[in-house]
Structure formats: structure tokens, C-alpha cells
């Protein structure tokens, strides 16, 4: 179904609601409706049409006396986005919550409540999410009248967690400081002995104000900020940002740059997956396999260093393409390294899949139910291990992916084993993709120059990061600078899914399940 057919279908059913609709950037259908009608149309899109809610955000447009909400739904068959927009009155500051029916909306509504001070009416659990209790109640950092340099006073508070009552039920508080060198996060387990009834994760200890930081800045500077959203998703995030800006500028990037972008994106995926696989093995004390995967990861970093002189792949992209031709002259060495990595990986995988003790640990551990995964819009390898074949590289094709051949591995068990297998298969696909890129590299320019951006333009940039789909949205202001930059990373979607996957397992299996999801704390808390 094309976007126009979809539009016609929605208009047929809901014409009386629609105040205005427009198609931008080829695949983004913006429909403006009244706030009161959002629940009805949202449920229609989510439940009846099966579109998943991929982002929900607000903008502060009080120069026009309102806030505006954007509900973005992804129609995955045709690769199009349906964005319901509605204004929220600046005096009442309330909007209708849709999270009792569109469950994925719950966290977004909490986020908007914290950062904009808009109140979702009917939200089932409106506790603070992004800002903890020690932040004053009336400071809303993403409002335009909140200065970036403002440091609010700390307020005394006690954190509230869901209490589970019953004989022998205990709470185990873990974190935010952990024993290993990992990011901060507080986990509150409700347990009876070892089995876990409920896990509540309090994250957002590393709020950096990235979205606020970008506002009013020029697009070039924000590129560098976008690279630093999450340390191991540099390419995925900067690519999403670049794609949004390139759509606003209305340019097509050179084919060669598209290919180089794919190579780096896949290199990043491979490196990240090796880290996850090593983590899974080390968590069950499988030292041999753990160090094999860590070695492979180090080899991948070696490739990155050879290509761009930087393991974390910063400053590879640029607006309009890539910074330079990183590949030419290194093709032979790259192919040799890919062969070496593939061979070592095949050998390692052969050994570990035959280890019955290891399989006993990872099978049936941390099962994420398909229905829950769909309702929460779980993304990436976690969703693909639960039977949901979502991959933005196929559904919203970008860069050179439509020209390359690759498979999207899907498993249906939803346990640690499935997530691990998905990641192993994806690494093989990544190696395959990198080979295709090197062999089919077109000639041409590295980048296209961008002029100043048009004012009041908006666009989405979507990529598939190692952790899953990455949805960025950029709107320009009067001067062509950034008015609002909304970043939705895959970790934001998968954290609630993790809490569901953990329930019913035993406490000592939590680190393993957590590692199989491998979510980013910094990338979740912008």
C-alpha cells in the first residue's frame, strides 16, 4: 500500500477529524488533528493498521501560543511514516494519554511530562522518568524559556518503586554504581528467594541535555553532537542526523558516499555484536569463548583504525556524504582481514554451539514474548529474536542498502540463545555486506556541498543501529538553524522490554539477560 493509498484510507474513515495533511520528503505523511481525536486515530493506526509507534515528541511553539505533539507511526510494508500532529493549549498544558491502548506511548508521555511539563491525562503510571525526584517540580528543561546554563536547586526526595507485597517478598536494590566498568543504572528487584517477580529500572543518571544543546545551533555543529549520543553507535546516530538534514536541504548524496556509509555502519555493527557476544560468554564464565570474541572485536577495531585512524569512527560522515575516500588503496587488506575474521568466527561458533553446558544456560533464559515485543515496539536483535522481522535497512532503505544483498535473520524463541544467534548471523551478514561494498565501490565524489538550510522544514532520519532502529527528527528555525532535534535511540524502546523479559527468571540470570539485550544507558538518556 503506497502512502497515497494510506492517506486515502485514513481520510475515508476519519475525514471529519483531519484539519490538514501533507506529504513531505517522499514518505512522511503529516496529519494535523485535534487533540481529542488522537486516541481514536492512534488506536486505529496502531491496532487496526499494525503501524508501530516509533516516536512521540513535543515541540515548544509558544510563539504561536501552543505546544505541538508529534505521534509518529511507522507503516513498515511500504516504508512510510504517518505523523499525527496536534496542538496543546499553552494554558491548560494537558493532552490525552494513549498509553492504555498504545502501550509503547507510555514512556514517551512520561518523557514529555518531565521535559515539557505537559500532563498526559489518563496515564496509568505517571512517575518521573527522565528527571529524578531531586529535580524541582516546576523546571522543564526543553521549554524554550529554560536557559541552557540554568542550574536548578536540588530538592530532597525519596524514590518510589512499585511495591509487591506478600510473605517472603524482598526488594533487592542494585546500583546505580556497579562493580564492573559499566554505566550507571538502578535496578530494583522484587524477589521471593531467587525468582524475580518484578524488575523496575531507574535509569537517567547521565542526562546531558543533548536535545537542548542542539537548539539554536547550526547544523554543522550539531553533527558533532549527534556523533556523541552513544559511544558505540557513532555512525548510526550521525548517519540518521545527516539523512534528516540532507532531506531538509533536498540534496542527493553521491553514490560513492552511500557505499562508504554502509561499510562503516556494518563495521560498527560487527564490532558492537562481538562485544555483546563476548559479554554473554563472560557472564556465564565461558572464558575461552569470551576472549575469542574480544579478540575478534579488537580485530574489528584494528580495521576501523586502519580505515579512518579512529576506533570509534568519529568524523567519518559529514553533511552531504563522507569526509573523504577512506577505502581506496586498502581494498585488498580489508578483504584479507574480513576473511580472517570470518574464519575465526566460524571456528569459534562451531565450538560454542556444541557446548551443552553453555546451551543449558542460554536456552529458555529471559524469554521476551512476541506480543510484548510488538506492544512495546521492541527493536533490533531483541525483536528479531522474538519473531518480529523488523529491520530499517529493509523497511526504510537508506544509503546503499537497497542495492546490496543481505538477509535479516529472525528467530522465534525470544530467549538469550535466540538473541545470541541473531547477533552471530548478523555479523556474517555484515561481513558479507562489507565485501559487497568493497567489490562494487562506484567512482565519484565523496560529498555534496550543502547550502544554508531552509527555515521551518522538518524531516526524519532513520537508521538501523547495532541495537535496533534509530529515529531522529529535525526541524529548522527561522534562520535555518536547529529548532528541535528529537532523538529516539533503540535503547529507549528496549529498556521496558528487558524488564518484562527478566520477570520469572532467577536473580543470578539477570546479568546474562541484560547483556543479551546490551542496552545503552547514555544513549537512552540524552
Amino acid at each position: 500500500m503506497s502512502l497515497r493509498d494510506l492517506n486515502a484510507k485514513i481520510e475515508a474513515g476519519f475525514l471529519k477529524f483531519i484539519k490538514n495533511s501533507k506529504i513531505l520528503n517522499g514518505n512522511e505523511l503529516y496529519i494535523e488533528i485535534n487533540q481529542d481525536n488522537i486516541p481514536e486515530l492512534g488506536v486505529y493506526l496502531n491496532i487496526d493498521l499494525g503501524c508501530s509507534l516509533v516516536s512521540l515528541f513535543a515541540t515548544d511553539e509558544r510563539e504561536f501560543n501552543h505546544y505541538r505533539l508529534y505521534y509518529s507511526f511507522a507503516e513498515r510494508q511500504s516504508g512510510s511514516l504517518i505523523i499525527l500532529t496536534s496542538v496543546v493549549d499553552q494554558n491548560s498544558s494537558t493532552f490525552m494519554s494513549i498509553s492504555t491502548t498504545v502501550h509503547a506511548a507510555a514512556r514517551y508521555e512520561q518523557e514529555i511530562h518531565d521535559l515539557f511539563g505537559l500532563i498526559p491525562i489518563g496515564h496509568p503510571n505517571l512517575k518521573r522518568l527522565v528527571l529524578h525526584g531531586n529535580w524541582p517540580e516546576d523546571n522543564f528543561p526543553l521549554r524554550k524559556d529554560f536557559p541552557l546554563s540554568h542550574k536548578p536547586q536540588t530538592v530532597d526526595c525519596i524514590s518510589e518503586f512499585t511495591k509487591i507485597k506478600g510473605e517472603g517478598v524482598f526488594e533487592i536494590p542494585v546500583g546505580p554504581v556497579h562493580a564492573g566498568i559499566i554505566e550507571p543504572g538502578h535496578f530494583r528487584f522484587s524477589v521471593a528467594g531467587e525468582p524475580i517477580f518484578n524488575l523496575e529500572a531507574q535509569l537517567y543518571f547521565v542526562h546531558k541535555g543533548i536535545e537542548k544543546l542542539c537548539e539554536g545551533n547550526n547544523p554543522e555543529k550539531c553533527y558533532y553532537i549527534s556523533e556523541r549520543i552513544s559511544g558505540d553507535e557513532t555512525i548510526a546516530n550521525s548517519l540518521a542526523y545527516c539523512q534528516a538534514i540532507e532531506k531538509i536541504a533536498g540534496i542527493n548524496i553521491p553514490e560513492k558516499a552511500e557505499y562508504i556509509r554502509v561499510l562503516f555502519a556494518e563495521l560498527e555493527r560487527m564490532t558492537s555484536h562481538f562485544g555483546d557476544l563476548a559479554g554473554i560468554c563472560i557472564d556465564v564464565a565461558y572464558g575461552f569463548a569470551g576472549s575469542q570474541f574480544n579478540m575478534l572485536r579488537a580485530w574489528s577495531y584494528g580495521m576501523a583504525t586502519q580505515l579512518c585512524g579512529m576506533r570509534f569512527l568519529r568524523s567519518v560522515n559529514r553533511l552531504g556524504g563522507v569526509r573523504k575516500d577512506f577505502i581506496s588503496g586498502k581494498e585488498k587488506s580489508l578483504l584479507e582481514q574480513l576473511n580472517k575474521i570470518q574464519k575465526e568466527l566460524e571456528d569459534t561458533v562451531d565450538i560454542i554451539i556444541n557446548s551443552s553446558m553453555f546451551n543449558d544456560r542460554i536456552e529458555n533464559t529471559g524469554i521476551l514474548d512476541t506480543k510484548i515485543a510488538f506492544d512495546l515496539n521492541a527493536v533490533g536483535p531483541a525483536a528479531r529474536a522474538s519473531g518480529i522481522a523488523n529491520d530499517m535497512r529493509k523497511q526504510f532503505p537508506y544509503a546503499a542498502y537497497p542495492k546490496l544483498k543481505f538477509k535479516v535473520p529472525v528467530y522465534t524463541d525470544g530467549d538469550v540463545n535466540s538473541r545470541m544467534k541473531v547477533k552471530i548471523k548478523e555479523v556474517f551478514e555484515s561481513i558479507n555486506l562489507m565485501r559487497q561494498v568493497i567489490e562494487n565501490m562506484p567512482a565519484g565524489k565523496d560529498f555534496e556541498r550543502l547550502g544554508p538550510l531552509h527555515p521551518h522544514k522538518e524531516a526524519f532520519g532513520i537508521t538501523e543501529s547495532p541495537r535496533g532502529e534509530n529515529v531522529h527528527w529535525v526541524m529548522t528555525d527561522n534562520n535555518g538553524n536547529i529548532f528541535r532535534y528529537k532523538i529516539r535511540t533503540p535503547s529507549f524502546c528496549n529498556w521496558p522490554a528487558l524488564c518484562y523479559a527478566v520477570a520469572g527468571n532467577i536473580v543470578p540470570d539477570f546479568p546474562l539477560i541484560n547483556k543479551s539485550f546490551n542496552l545503552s544507558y547514555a544513549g537512552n538518556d540524552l
Partner: protein
Amino acid sequence: MINITYLIVQIIVVIAIAPLVNGIIKKIKALSQKRKGAPILQLYYDLYKLLKKDTVVSDTTSWIFKAAPYIVFTSSLVAAMLVPVTTMLDPIWLAGDLILMVYLLALGRFFMMLAGLDAASTFGGMGASREAMISSLIEPSILVSLITVGLTAGSTSSYQIMEYMKYVDTPLIRPVYFMAFIALFIVTIAETARIPVDDPSTHLELTMVHEAMLLEYSGRGLALMELGASIKQLTFITLLANIFIPHDQLILISGVGAVVLSVLIYVIKIVFISILIAVAEVSTVKLRLFSIPNIAALAFILSFIGFMQYFVLGR
């Protein structure tokens, strides 16, 4: 006089060798992962460093927390005194037997579990409850396998068992001893918090057993706990080495030379068994916590088969 010499030799050898076992096991694990690994003597450096450091004690703890390291260390050391490293010297007393050894170690463990609970931290209680579960599962196998060996020797004193075993021709090809050896080997792995029962090198508090109880300790308390644990480990390895692979019958000389030679051969056997343990660790994966009863059942069945075979096959 000879008894005091026994005491001195025993204490020096046990304290000097115990941390070496950890070093060897860690080194072999590192080599299996293509790493250089820490020096074999690392635990000695760590203990020296810890003994020099201040201790930090939580305000919420009672006397148990402060007393536990001394109790754990002392009970391990006294238990180690009951298992001679060489039979060339008469032990201090014949009254103390293997059953006393098992329960001296249990006393240390009991106080370690109390200390884990005492600080009321998140992980100490989890570690203590898991330790209680594992030790109660593994205790029958220790007793049955040791009593089986004791039955053949006609004594439960480790010195007398070792004296007897010297004259048994290659014990490990005999089913009774072989079963008891394997059972005791599994017991050793479980008792010393090694893979597949526990992971001594993990940083994940939620999965820890032994380490979780020590999390609150620092400085001298931690050093004593660590040394106590490694002495306990050496005691089990000494049982394996000196009962099932006796060596003193090979030494034909007597006097000081014989003792030195005997201790040297003992050290070689300890290294050999440490390598066996390291191989077992490298080739397995940590079990799911609720699968540990399976391995405990395996150890018990093996020891029980050995026990039955004593009655069927005799010695």
C-alpha cells in the same frame, strides 16, 4: 619434639603453598584465553598489600563482622593441621580426624555466612543463602567419600589413612578409591567456589556466591578471608594428593633429607592437581544456580557407589 617440628613444617608449608595454587590456576586460565595473565605469585603480593591497608567497617555491623575473618582463618588453619602434607613426621595428635576437619571448615563457613548477613548489604545475604544451599548439598558427599576411604584403612584419622594408603598398590585403579577420588574432586570444586559452581573472577555481584559474602571486607580482614579460603582449598587438594596418590613409600632415606624430599614431591603433586582443577574450570561453564543440586547429586552418587563397592568388592 618431633610433634613441634611437625607443627612448624605443616604451618610453613601450608601458608607458603596455599596462595600458589590460586596463582597456578589463574595462569592456566589466562593461557587458555591467549592472555599472559597475572604473575603466579600475584596472590602473595595482594595479601601483602591488603595487610598493610586500613580496614573500613560499616557502622551497622556487630562484633561478628570483625571476628569472622579471624575465625575463618583460624578454623581453616587448624583444619589444615589435621591433614599432613608429609607422613614423614608424626602429627601432633591422633585424636583429630577428618570428621573434625570437615566441621572445623563448616564452623568457618558458618561465621562467613553470618558476616555476609551482618553488614545488611544487598549482596551479602544473597551470597550467604546460596552458600548455605550449596554447602548443605555437598556435605554428604564429603563425608561419605572420606568415610569410605576411612573404612578401608580402619581409621578416620588422615595420618593413619595416609599411612595405610602408602601400601595400597596404585589406589586409583581400584573402583572404591576411584569413585571416592572423583567425588572428592567435585567436592573440592564446589567447596572452593570454582566454575562450574561459582565464578571466582566475576564482577557481577548478582551471580556471586563466595565473593558476595566478602564484598564488605577490606584490608586485613579481607586478607585473612582470602588466605583462609586458599588454605581451605589447599586442605582439600592435600586430601586428594596424599590419600589417592601417596608418595612417601618411594622415599627410602630417613631424617631431615626425607622430609625435604617428601615436601618437594608433595608440592609437585599439588601443582599437578591445580592443573587438573584449572582444566576443569576452563572446559566448563558456570551452571545455572538451580542446576547445582545436579552436580551435588552426581558427587553423592559417586561417593555412595564407592561406599557400596567397599562392601561388595572389599578393599
